[in-house]
């Protein structure tokens, strides 16, 4: 696993650098809008994003197990700050690589998570029939667990 640093800021930024000199940044953006912005739990909802911040290698990042471990640790750290946090991740499908992104996200989650977390997967289908895999990570003992799961399932059927 790589060392990581919490930068903070509006969108709760984390940063880490791989042994190949690739620097990743992760953000957790507060998004009360996503499920039901009138619900009590709306203040706990965050969107998760990871991206390469610096890559001077001139090559695409290759599979690196330590990256998965580090992302998992950052998740744990973020949930340590507030165990009731809820993270939502959407896989961009603009380049047709949404399933690869989902598999990567699954890898971070299933290999290194503790049993106290739960991940829920859905596919959002827009009116043009484009499919967007979306995942939500929540701790099982979240006091709003049932309401959040219902609200999450609801967003995938809201074009009907």
């Amino acid at each position, binding site marked *: 696993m790589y*060392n*990581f*640093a*919490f*930068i*903070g*800021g509006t*969108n709760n*930024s984390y*940063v*880490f*650098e791989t042994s190949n000199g690739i*620097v990743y*940044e992760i*953000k957790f*953006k507060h*998004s*009360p*809008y*996503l499920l039901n*912005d*009138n619900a009590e739990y709306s203040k706990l909802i965050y*969107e998760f*994003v990871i*991206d390469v*911040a*610096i890559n001077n290698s001139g090559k695409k990042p290759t599979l690196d197990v330590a990256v998965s471990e580090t992302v998992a640790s950052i998740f744990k750290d973020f949930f340590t700050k507030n165990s009731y946090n809820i993270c*939502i991740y*959407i896989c*961009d499908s*603009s380049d047709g690589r949404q399933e690869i992104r989902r598999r990567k996200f699954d890898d971070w989650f299933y290999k290194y998570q503790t049993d106290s977390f739960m991940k829920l997967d859905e596919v*959002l*289908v*827009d*009116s043009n029939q*484009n499919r*967007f895999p*979306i995942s939500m990570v929540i701790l099982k003992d979240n006091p709003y667990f049932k309401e959040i799961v219902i609200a999450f399932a609801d*967003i*995938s*059927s*809201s*074009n009907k």
Partner: protein
Amino acid sequence: MGTKEKRTTDEVVAYLLKSKKEMQDEIKKDIHTKEFQEALQKLRTKQQQKNV
């Protein structure tokens, strides 16, 4: 973007993709900030100490 009306999947997808793009753009800009540079420097120093 708050609203009391039930939002459609199209609206949720549009919001999420826009938000993701904004955060990715923010990451590109972050690398020039003092906070980012300091954090990266600390990580590199820590790594160098580990390698000694």
